[in-house]
């Protein structure tokens, strides 16, 4: 068994115990829920960005698609929220499939086209003409399934799923091929790697994680608007957390989210007037001094980070 898989099992165990027991001593459930959500999103983004090198600026589009997909299943099909979460994941995968042609673009063009796609999806959902389906700009309300505890445990499950998935990929031959694609797609195909197929699989897995998280978020808050779940801030937060922790690893996105999301909340509550300033400063310092994230500190000392 690859070492990465064993380390991942340890990370899974610690994460599970943390989010099961911390609620007993810390009663801000919404913050813990958001922490798990961002950890899952960071891991999901890492599957496409960290493992294959494509950075989707519009990653939040999958989150929004999941939130609306789940909400529609609850509203129109009267499905249980657990099933609706799966529908949300499916909706995001569907959007991901539609966007596969974006991979013809490289680098920044891919990132920007993806951002445009997420914005387009937002305007479609928020369009008043679709009020009979999406409620347009007036938002979704799901009082019939309101159950923060159920949503909390579901999000924990999704986080663990994202962790196991990330760890499995990293230690497998699939992960090795993704790394090859990230380093040099042409040489990867000259090594027999089906670049188009493997890149698409990792893209859809990445979309799936965001969709599941989006649907669960919608369920948790039960009242939301298009801008709540398609807000670019969610995507920016996720990207910064992944970068801060260190891309391409299992631990990086988790640690990055834990520290930065924790710090933001601390600053936001204690000195909200400095929030934007500190937020910006952290990003600048990160780009200047730690472009490969926190885990690179350990790697530089020869420590193998899972």
């Amino acid at each position, binding site marked *: 068994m690859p070492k990465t898989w064993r380390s991942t099992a340890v990370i899974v165990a610690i994460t599970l115990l943390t989010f099961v027991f911390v609620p007993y001593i810390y009663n801000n459930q919404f913050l813990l829920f958001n922490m798990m959500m961002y950890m899952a999103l960071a891991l999901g983004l890492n599957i496409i960005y960290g493992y294959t090198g494509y950075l989707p600026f519009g990653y939040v589009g999958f989150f929004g698609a999941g939130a609306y997909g789940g909400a529609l299943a609850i509203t129109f099909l009267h499905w249980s929220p657990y099933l609706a979460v799966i529908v949300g994941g499916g909706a995001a995968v569907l959007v991901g499939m539609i966007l596969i042609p974006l991979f013809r673009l490289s680098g920044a063009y891919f990132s920007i086209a993806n951002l445009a796609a997420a914005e387009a999806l937002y305007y479609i959902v928020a369009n008043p003409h679709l009020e009979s389906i999406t409620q347009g700009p007036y938002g979704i309300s799901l009082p019939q399934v309101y159950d923060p505890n159920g949503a909390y445990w579901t999000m924990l499950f999704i986080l663990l799923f994202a962790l196991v998935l990330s760890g499995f990929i990293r230690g497998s*031959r699939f992960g*090795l*091929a993704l*790394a*090859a694609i*990230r*380093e*040099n797609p*042409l*040489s*990867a*195909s*000259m*090594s*027999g*790697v*089906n*670049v*188009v197929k493997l890149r698409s699989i990792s893209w859809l897995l990445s979309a799936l994680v965001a969709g599941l998280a989006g649907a669960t978020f919608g369920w948790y808050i039960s009242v939301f608007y298009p801008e709540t779940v398609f807000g670019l801030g969610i995507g920016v937060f996720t990207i910064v957390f992944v970068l801060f922790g260190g891309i391409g690893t299992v631990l990086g996105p988790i640690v990055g989210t834990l520290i930065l999301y924790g710090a933001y909340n601390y600053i936001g509550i204690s000195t909200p007037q400095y929030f934007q300033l500190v937020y910006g400063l952290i990003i600048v310092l990160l780009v200047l001094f730690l472009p490969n994230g926190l885990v690179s500190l350990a790697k530089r000392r020869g420590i193998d980070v899972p």
Partner: protein
Amino acid sequence: MSPEAPILEVEGLKKHFGGLKALDGVSFSIHPGEILGLAGPNGSGKTTCINAISGVFRVDGGQIRYLGQPIQHLPAYRRVRHGINRTFQVPRPFLGLTVLENVMVAATYRGGRNVNPRHILEDIGLAEHADRPARSLNSSQQKMLGLARALATHPRLLLVDEIGAGLNPVELSSMAERLRSYAEQGMALLVVEHLMDFLDRVTDRLLVMDAGNTLFSGKLQQATEDSRVIEAFLGG
């Protein structure tokens, strides 16, 4: 298939980039165990020829037959799994991966039976660097790594793009010997090279290209006396 059947037949190959005809109807064939040298001035289309056969892009005309079957519609990774591979004129290693991992990718995804990447590194002389990142290799080591990656897929047809450039005389002669030994084991090789005396040590069959066309095809000794070839090299 009879032993005389060529492994690769290229017929009337065409490729243009905008208005530039990089390949304008090139034809040749290679048999198993044979080395074909390919020379020509800068920009004459040698690398484009390798790119076309290895599937980097689709050609605009002509046929590429491998083991008798047309392959010009197959994606590159499928051609690799059928036994075609190549090196790059400018090495393209997976810089962030270790030397061993570089070879492991090819050994894992080539399809068919497993290949031990460490054996290949030993053969190519990179075993002691196995755990170093490819980024830390010098350029001739990166060239060797590119060859190791190609070999890890067990090619039956190997396309070599100016592997001699930048090697010192000792490295050059061992490289010539190495390529000949691959041919002796039955591999077919297309060896693109500027250095004529390197080609001379590798093969006596030569193709000379100029501006996308075949300028000369025959024995290497005759080429050096051919006025068109001399003109292309001195004038180009």
